[in-house]
């Protein structure tokens, strides 16, 4: 089989490239879809345990078929277009959110060679796609012709301004240490034990753990999770951007949220927690990345079911008074240390 593939690769490189592309797309689609479905299940189970109840348990063993039932329900519902909406944007917005979430996965390496398309500017590509996500929410909210959605759209944008700056400042200081935007190389630099991970590279910058926390907080804001779910804020804005969405339109937004969570957590694991490297330097492989990834996602869920929501001036205060100054100090220290050593 393998020799036959090698033979094909040699004779018809173009066909093989297309074949590889198709396989990758299918894999990413399946991965994102499955993740979105079962992370909802995980979240509901975890919320249940935190709140001292069981969570879904009726549909299938341990409620494992619950996502399937939810999916069937969402898909069989009428795609309702409210009166007076901007039809094109209304239908485009959920797709935009979902597509950009997919696109982020293209450059994410899950292991040695386990990547759809390795880019030298992989990190930059991810940030570029991730910020389009906000545009999707904005368009959807704006096109809905709903006052709650409109307030939500304004919040989404102001939130975007608040978290992107400290996030990129942290990434900038990290890049000074790594010297590359290629995600594969960033992971390769962290090989060995957990003392080599970027989060513990205290010789590069003593504020590295703090930078990790800032990045984590910004990821929470980027994925619209509590305590920063200002755009959805169900007790203030009903459902914010999604107020007028039903059936699979809502479903796509919902899946997009979970896909973004996966992207954010993967990015944290790759940038700070050594990617697919083992903490003790043995058996590196994708399983370690998945372990870190799901641990982070569980933490995000745990945070959601513990804290109340901030207001958007709370987020701006946090960003401008706490995160940005610390990130700047971190940038200065890292820059100085990189120059000295």
């Amino acid at each position, binding site marked *: 089989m393998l020799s036959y593939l090698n033979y094909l690769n040699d004779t018809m490189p173009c066909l093989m490239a297309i074949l590889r592309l198709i396989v990758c797309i299918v894999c990413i689609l399946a991965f994102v879809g499955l993740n979105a479905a079962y992370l909802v299940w995980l979240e509901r189970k975890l919320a249940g345990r935190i709140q001292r*109840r069981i969570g879904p348990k009726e549909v299938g063993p341990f409620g494992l078929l619950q996502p399937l039932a939810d999916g069937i329900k969402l898909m069989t519902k009428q795609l309702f277009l409210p009166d007076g909406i901007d039809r094109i944007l209304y239908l485009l917005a959920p797709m935009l959110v979902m597509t950009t979430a997919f696109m982020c996965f293209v450059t994410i390496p899950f292991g040695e060679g386990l990547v759809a398309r390795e880019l030298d500017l992989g990190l930059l590509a991810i940030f570029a796609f991730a910020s389009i996500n906000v545009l999707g929410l904005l368009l959807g909210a704006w096109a809905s012709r709903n006052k709650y959605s409109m307030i939500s759209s304004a919040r989404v944008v102001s939130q975007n301004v608040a978290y992107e700056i400290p996030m990129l400042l942290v990434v900038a200081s990290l890049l000074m240490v790594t010297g590359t935007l290629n995600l594969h190389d960033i992971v390769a630099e962290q090989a060995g034990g957990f003392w080599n991970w970027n989060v513990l590279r205290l010789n590069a910058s003593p504020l590295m753990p703090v930078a990790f926390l800032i990045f984590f907080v910004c990821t929470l804001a980027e994925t619209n999770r509590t305590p920063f779910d200002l755009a959805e804020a169900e007790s203030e804005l009903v459902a914010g951007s999604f107020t007028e969405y039903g059936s699979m339109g809502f479903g796509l937004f919902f899946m997009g949220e979970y896909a973004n969570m996966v992207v954010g957590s993967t990015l944290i694991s790759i940038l700070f927690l050594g990617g697919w490297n083992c903490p003790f330097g043995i058996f590196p492989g994708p399983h370690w990345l998945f372990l870190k990834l799901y641990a982070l996602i569980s933490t995000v869920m*745990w945070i959601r079911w*513990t804290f109340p929501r901030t207001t958007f001036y709370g987020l701006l205060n946090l960003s401008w008074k706490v995160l940005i100054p610390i990130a700047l100090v971190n940038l200065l220290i890292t820059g100085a240390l990189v120059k000295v050593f």
Partner: protein
Amino acid sequence: MAAYIKSILVGTWSLIAGLAITLRFVFKPVVTCQYPHAVPKIPDRYRGHIDFVYDPATCSHKCIVCGMCQKTCPSGCISLEGEKLEGAKKKTLSVYQLNFTTCSLCGLCVEACPTGALTFSKEYNLAGFDEKEYHFDLIKRLQERP
């Protein structure tokens, strides 16, 4: 500056303390009752809709058709009729209808009954498709009871 750093540290610590509390609850047993599979215990004084008390002496109810329950009911959901059977001194009950759709489960009728003919049923699982399902005929209910 010191106050600024302190406020950040105190704030972060409060968040961690909150997370620790919810984490502890994850490992504690659940407190919910898995309702359709496990049924909660209904206390003795539970006020369901009214029912007749079974009187072993007469193998029937104790109602003497005084109409106190009907008069005392705030919602007017009880309607009863009695008829004089031949040879009997007092009236006997022929119809006792409870319109449960307007009943507010206050229990005033049970307290008003001079003979203690009424009691509360322990039924709480009441759901139906039609209003008529809630026009209870208490005499029939008593006969159907084992």
